[in-house]
């Protein structure tokens, strides 16, 4: 198996059961006011866990991304992920490499 095969398999899976999310990197001015400096919309597998009720205001969210949908945008800690209109904060970024090539990104988000 090659890295490209891993990515293709993930892309097929995301096309089947994924959903559209928007990754945002914000910039701030001297007063701390935020603006979106960079963003990309891509497919992702989203799984929430740890909610305290059905309409949980704050919950942990696992987001799985394929590198092929990112267009050069590499998620970082404290980037924003907008899922169904709700922004969440990227708490952890866990890239998976196969043969030295990035094949998948697991994000832990909170929001």
């Amino acid at each position, binding site marked *: 198996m090659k890295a490209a095969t891993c990515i293709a398999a993930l892309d097929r899976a995301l096309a089947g059961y994924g959903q559209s999310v928007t990754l945002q990197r*914000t*910039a*701030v*001015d*001297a*007063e*701390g*006011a*935020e603006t979106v*400096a960079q963003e990309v919309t891509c497919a992702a597998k989203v799984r929430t866990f740890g909610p305290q009720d059905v309409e949980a*205001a*704050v919950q942990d969210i696992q987001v799985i991304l394929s590198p092929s949908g990112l267009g050069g945008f590499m998620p*970082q*800690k*404290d980037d*924003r992920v907008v899922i169904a209109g*709700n*922004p*969440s*904060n990227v708490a952890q970024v866990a890239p998976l490499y196969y043969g030295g090539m990035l094949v998948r990104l697991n994000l832990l988000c909170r*929001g």
Partner: protein
Amino acid sequence: MCGAVEGVRSVGRNTLDVAALARPAIIVQDGIEQVRDIAAGSRYSEVARMELSPGLTVIVRGGNGVDGGGLLSLYRARVLTAVLTDAELIAATGRNGGIRYEGCLVPSPDPEGKEHRLDLSLVFAYTFKLDDLS
């Protein structure tokens, strides 16, 4: 009042974070209310001088060359000025009370994090009167 501080985008009370994660944000935790002293000769819980210690957390985002520490200092100054000079709050604490700034704490940031927090400690001393509850 925290929502009226210049530059603050969102305020929450007794919550972990604000809606839509807007920044800069202030979160107020109601904190602790406890007795400081009791007037001589008064019956317990009829009249007492109390201290209320709410928690104020300022949350800002840094990055793109903007120093998070500088933003924290900016909002520390704005929030403290707003609280310590607010006529309504000063009047509410009364002649035997007052507002005291007890210091602040900046928790260690997460590695590569852009979010910065500042915890402000304030004490509001005021007279508790049982009659005021009815």
